[in-house]
């Protein structure tokens, strides 16, 4: 059964790690999660039938905060759960989801190269879309100035 009651179960199971639960419509649910508990929460959701990682991305909130945003849904229902994990901007690190959702790999690589968020234990954390010499530029950060001109 896949419906909004999952959010109640989620808050009950992780009372300290899940906060700000909001259900804006029938098909959407939003919550903030503790960045150190990401893997356990995702494993819990996977066991509950949320077997599809639809999207993974980063958001930059300068000067001190970054967010990793997960959109978890399932192959049998319309509910999309948006989970946001805050991480410090000066040391952006979070656990990789590759063990739980196979397709997290490319999303994590993309988020890494565009935001500089490191995913612990990601099996192959290298640039995906950008040229290799742009590693370390983090173009989607809000303070990115443009492609460097070495000459």
């Amino acid at each position, binding site marked *: 059964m896949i419906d909004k009651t999952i959010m109640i179960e989620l808050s009950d199971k992780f009372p300290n790690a899940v906060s700000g639960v909001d259900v804006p419509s029938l*098909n*959407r649910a*939003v919550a903030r999660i503790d960045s150190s508990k990401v893997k356990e929460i995702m494993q819990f959701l996977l066991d509950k039938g949320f*077997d*599809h*990682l*639809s*999207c993974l*991305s980063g*958001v*930059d909130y300068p000067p001190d905060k970054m967010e990793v*945003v997960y*959109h978890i849904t399932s*192959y*049998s*229902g*319309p509910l*999309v759960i*948006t989970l946001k994990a805050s991480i410090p901007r000066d040391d952006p690190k979070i656990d990789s989801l*590759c063990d739980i*959702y*196979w*397709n997290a*790999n*490319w999303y994590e690589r993309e988020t890494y190269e*565009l935001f500089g968020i490191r995913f612990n234990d990601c*099996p*192959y954390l290298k*640039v*995906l*879309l*950008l*040229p290799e010499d742009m590693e370390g530029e983090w*173009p*989607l950060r809000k303070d*990115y100035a443009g492609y460097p001109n070495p000459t």
Partner: protein
Amino acid sequence: MTHESTQITSPPRPSEILLHLGPQHPLQPGPFLLDLKIEGETIREAELKIGYIHKGMEKVFEDRTYIQILPLSDRICYLASNSNNDVYCRGVEELLGIEPTDRAKYLRVLTNELCRIQSHLLGIGEYTTDVGFLTMFIYMVREREGVVSLLEAITGSRLNHNYARFGGVANDLPPGYKEMALKTLGELKKMIKSHDGMLSSDSIYLKRTKGVGVLTAKQAKELGVAGPPLRASGVEYDLRRVEPYLVYDELDFNVITQTDGDVFSRVKVRLLEILESIYIIEQVLDQMPSGKYKQDVMPYITRPKPGEVYSRTEDPRGEMGMYIISDGSDKPYRFRIRGPAFATAQALPPLLVGTYVADVAAIAASMDSCTSEVDR
């Protein structure tokens, strides 16, 4: 499925060869590099390298006003420009708290389905050239011409349609459109049935596609694919049914599935989806209400309230999602595009491991990738 199957982990041994397919190769719809480590004729490891036409669209979008993004959203994938317009507009409409008019909803469904037909036609055409079936490509391009003309009659352009607007669509149907559309689509329906017969009865084609590149339902879910490759494995997952948007819940249609999950099934799903789309368009043309095709006051200068939205659509290639964060200004704070082809491209290397070099073209092309959308 392990992550080792998506990359080449070690240099080739003396009995192995490292083979580059690409970045420019006739089998590929755009520049991407498929590295294969082969031993004899069997693929041991495969790795896909993308990003050759990375346009930085997410960054570009964050630097434009909402209305300026509208024509750019076509360019994510030109074969799905109507779907991309529509999903973007629905996202912004949700942020603004407005709704398109009833007639506009039907018009958007009409263009979305026409868009799906022409995308599938070209996808099948490109694919059949890759398995050495050039006749079908010419047939498909001929059929597609009629469908593109139907889109052109509404939107005025042939590739980048830029048709949806916040709260409606750009313009109404031209006079006599229904007769024109029904005539073209009636002929297309006959031709698709004939092409289907041709593809299903050609013994060489069957040998090249049946049982090749098999993706079981469990694997497909694990790999995170959506759209025709997933439905070819027997999973009935179609966002038009799962999460009905616009007026899809008022329309009658079937979700096309096949059970085998091989190359043949993936192409068959697309062929049958064309017939289903024609059926939807016939209903749309019958049921279309009269009235306004756009709201009286179209919000051209949009400053949505702070908030966020994740809008999804069933693109010709699968699940297209757009995650928009608004901070109250006239530009999105964060614009994330979840392209369907990105997910399908990621699933390609594990599918290739263990197959023959001769089958790479068939398998890669049957995923119907769109490099423009993978790279964004």
